[in-house]
């Protein structure tokens, strides 16, 4: 199985075939998760550190479960998240981790490039669990997998991402992942939340939601961070919801099937109305379920990276190479 990367730092570094490899593997791990004993010994003896500088119960737990399902040890590195009690620099943290000789690190940071920083300094593998507004590759891969399961094709698929694109790492990773697989992306939000130059990635930009919503097959609704309103980027939550919220009124007007996604956590009543959660269109819970299997696939692929100098000499070829 060819996987070109030593780390998972972003979708930007992945080829289409890398993405498909991960998706195929995720399928297998979904099966494992359905077994009575949903654990395989594949990564036994490996230690994977969760380094979460931004609090996140959901993603951190997802990675921890994924690691344990592979029989790896999952350890959390306690870090001070307040900038007041500054604690160690990322460099010092990296050196400490290196000294403890762990297999790999899953890092979430508020700063873009944090995962790259570690990857350059650690022997083990690094998984980016979200670095500032830059990328969140496992979320995007999980989203892509959910669509693969649900719709099964990407060529010509029309995907819409609605919300605060400018500050969203999920949007960036989704745009890359869906594009690489041949889908067409539209993005919608207020111009104040639209990053400069985004049209150069091939996306079509819309400032109004209603029409484009009826033209697409899939919509990913992004969480609106309420602090953005304080920063003066839009006048009020009420106005945001009326312009960009996936409200029950908009839901009622849908004529063709629309798959609705949201990476979570959801501001009910702001970007999504509660009616969506019981709508047959929503795949939001599946996104979560698929997340564990997806992360198992990622950890399996990266922890399988071996230092060639530790390879055994050939013992007649046979050890179980049932290929």
């Amino acid at each position, binding site marked *: 199985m060819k996987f070109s990367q030593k780390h998972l730092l972003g979708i930007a570094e992945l080829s289409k075939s890398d993405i498909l490899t991960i998706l195929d593997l995720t399928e*297998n791990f979904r099966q494992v998760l359905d077994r009575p004993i949903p654990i395989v010994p*594949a990564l036994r003896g490996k230690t994977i550190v969760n380094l979460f500088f931004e609090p996140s119960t959901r993603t951190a737990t997802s990675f921890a479960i994924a690691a344990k399902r592979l029989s790896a040890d999952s350890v959390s590195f306690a870090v001070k998240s307040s900038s007041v009690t500054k604690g160690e620099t990322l460099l010092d943290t990296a050196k400490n981790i290196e000294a403890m000789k762990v297999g790999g690190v899953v890092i979430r940071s508020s700063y873009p490039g944090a995962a790259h920083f570690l990857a350059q300094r650690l022997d083990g593998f690094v998984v980016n669990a979200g670095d500032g507004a830059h990328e969140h590759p496992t979320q995007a891969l999980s989203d892509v997998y959910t669509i693969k399961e649900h719709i099964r094709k990407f060529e010509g698929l029309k995907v819409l991402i609605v919300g605060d694109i400018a500050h969203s790492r999920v949007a960036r990773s989704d745009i890359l992942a869906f594009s690489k697989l041949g889908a067409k992306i539209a993005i919608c939000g207020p111009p104040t939340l639209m990053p400069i130059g985004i049209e150069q990635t091939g996306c079509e930009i819309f400032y109004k939601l209603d029409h484009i919503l009826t033209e697409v097959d899939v919509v990913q609704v992004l969480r609106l961070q309420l602090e953005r309103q304080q920063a003066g980027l839009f006048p009020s939550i009420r106005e945001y919801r009326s312009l960009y919220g996936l409200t029950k009124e908009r839901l009622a007007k849908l004529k063709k099937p629309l798959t609705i996604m949201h990476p979570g956590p959801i501001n009910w009543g702001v970007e999504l109305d509660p009616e969506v959660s019981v709508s047959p269109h929503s795949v939001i819970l599946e996104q979560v379920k698929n997340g564990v299997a997806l992360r198992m696939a990622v950890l399996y692929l990266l922890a399988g990276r*071996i230092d060639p100098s530790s390879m*055994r000499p050939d013992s*007649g070829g*046979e050890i*179980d190479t*049932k290929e």
Partner: protein
Amino acid sequence: MNACEIKRTLNRIAAEIKKRNKTIEELVFIGIKRRGATLAQRLAKILSPPPTSPYKRGRSKVGVPVGAIDITLYRDDLQLVAEIPIVRGSEINFDINDKIVILVDDVLFTGRTIRAALAEIVDFGRPKAIQLAVLIDRGHRELPIAADYIGKKIKTKKEDLVDIFVTEEDNKEGVFISRR
């Protein structure tokens, strides 16, 4: 071994399985991917009653249940191979609790594949017994594993290559040994 010999051998093994276990009711076959799975299919077919026979449990009126497992995730040498092995997925769509599992593989060599398969099977449930059937036993065991049913025992050097071809996978049939 040629195609005829393989057929004869499988028939003999099937007969042995039936003789030892007395009944085919509790039997389930699990083959180790890929060729072990093919052989398991064939053995199950040989032992399955013709469609008209009644079956007490009524689980599958079609024949003896057959499943296949991929042992990649249970290998003990994952850390030592150059490329990440392809995971093919396991399909065991029946309950194995209290059943007699006939584990089937094409070649028994070091025994490590079988160890991995045993570890995987017990994660699916608790069988009454597991019996091992192999087409070829080529010696050089590294673990204390022995087959209950052996098609043919052959003497090989450790460096030799033993290749099994089955029509379903390779469009030809036969067992070939090549010396390095």
